[in-house]
């Protein structure tokens, strides 16, 4: 992040920058959000989905390679 300015009262472009919402500033969106608390079942489901996706990808890649001339 490269801050070039700080907002001060009477800044010539104060009205312009007020067109943004405070939580829209880069300095605000750069602050990380707290972690989502996944329960064990949700976490396991995400892992299962990941394994399933990898397995399906492997099948398609195999069929793709075999179909090459």
């Amino acid at each position: 992040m490269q801050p070039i300015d700080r907002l001060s009262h009477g800044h010539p472009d104060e009205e312009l920058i007020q067109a943004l919402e405070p939580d829209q500033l880069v300095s605000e969106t750069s602050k990380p959000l707290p972690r989502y608390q996944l329960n064990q079942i949700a976490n396991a489901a995400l892992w299962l989905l990941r394994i399933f996706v990898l397995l399906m990808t492997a099948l398609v890649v195999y069929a793709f390679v075999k179909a090459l001339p």
Partner: protein
Amino acid sequence: MNDFPVPTSTAIAEGAVLTPEDWSRSHDRMRVLQARQTSQRPKLLWLLTGPGILVMLGENDGPSMLSYAASGATYGIGFFLPFIVVTFLAAFVVQEMSMRIGAVTHRGYGELIFQRFGPFWGWMSATDLVLTNLITLITEVIAVRVGMAFFGVPPLLAVGCAVALVAVTSSGARYWRWERMAMALALFNLLFVAVAVLSRPSPGQLVNALVTWTPLPTGSFQGFLLILASNIGATVTPWMLFFQQSASVDKGLTPKDIPQGRLDTAIGTALAALAGCAALVAASTLFVHHVDSGSLLGGTGYAEALQPLIGTFGSGLFALGLIEAGAVAMLTISASTAYAVGEVLGGSAHSFNRTIRQAPLFYAANIGMAVFAGIIVLIPGMPLLAITLNANLLATILMPAALVFLLILANDREIMGARVNSRLTNTFGALIALLVTLAGSSYAIVAFINSLSNKAS
């Protein structure tokens, strides 16, 4: 009463840190505020449209248009015409969620997964995206190359033009400028509508197909699954989630803009569905005249095959449409990669409202991916046809994981407040995830079994 109210807008406090990105965005937001205060609705819509139209017309890319054309040439305007309309409705449901999450949280999809679910899932999502985007970008360069070959442009020049387009449009250091250039180019997607008109379809057959979903496809089951999964991958893909959410953030959408963002997505859906159906209808002429469509995906196949049936002008428009489809998708898919790379590498600037010096990684990813795809396409002996055929399939297979995270984020009251999904949206979202999973996995299993049996014989 809601436990998680969305914070109301307040003034920016004195002493707030401002970046060049904030200043650029504030110019765009000022125009939006003025249009809203003076109740200029058409102007407000004009200012707030962009990400929705771009994501939908961007997804009508080279392999997608070829996929729709293959559907028409193989099965005619029966089952697949209404099916394409349904896949676009599914795309609307998914993309509306992306836009809404971006407008409420002011953070991209990759950024949210990284922060809310941790680096492991963040990197997984970004890796899936970069992999599919690279393969899809290769197919976009192929589309531009194939389209230009119809007009006699040599491959090196065609690929050079495609890569140069990405570099030139990215050079303005303003999101607004990039978006308007891409949108102007994207409207040429409607060239396919002109091609469809020139193919003189029967209005009665079109209405009959839309209402009855008949005639049903016949022939090889694997062939049907391939087209089915390709059509799904042609309308609902992971890069679209990354792109629309990040572009909505870069544009500066806020919760107040959600109605216009929704309309933007709906307009994009309607235009893209029209162009997609038009490609199918245009190519269905080949089905009517019993032209073997098996070998048409290579070279300038469809444009040349259509020439004796709809004339040189019509086939030229088809080739031009293919160039446009590849070119616009190169812009949007490169952008989605750049946003994702910037977002997962925390602290790295990721906005078209920055200069190349202020966001070197963002622009390096944006232009670098296009250059890499261009180089791959120019390597002699690369299986370009096979890559084109499988690009959409890969997107379909990787989509369920992306959809599940999207649904969790869209129901996350801690970040979305009262703007979480409705029960109806969740029902549709779950159905779409199920449909995509079934289509992708069915094709993967059938193709794998067939490749084993071919090996055995």
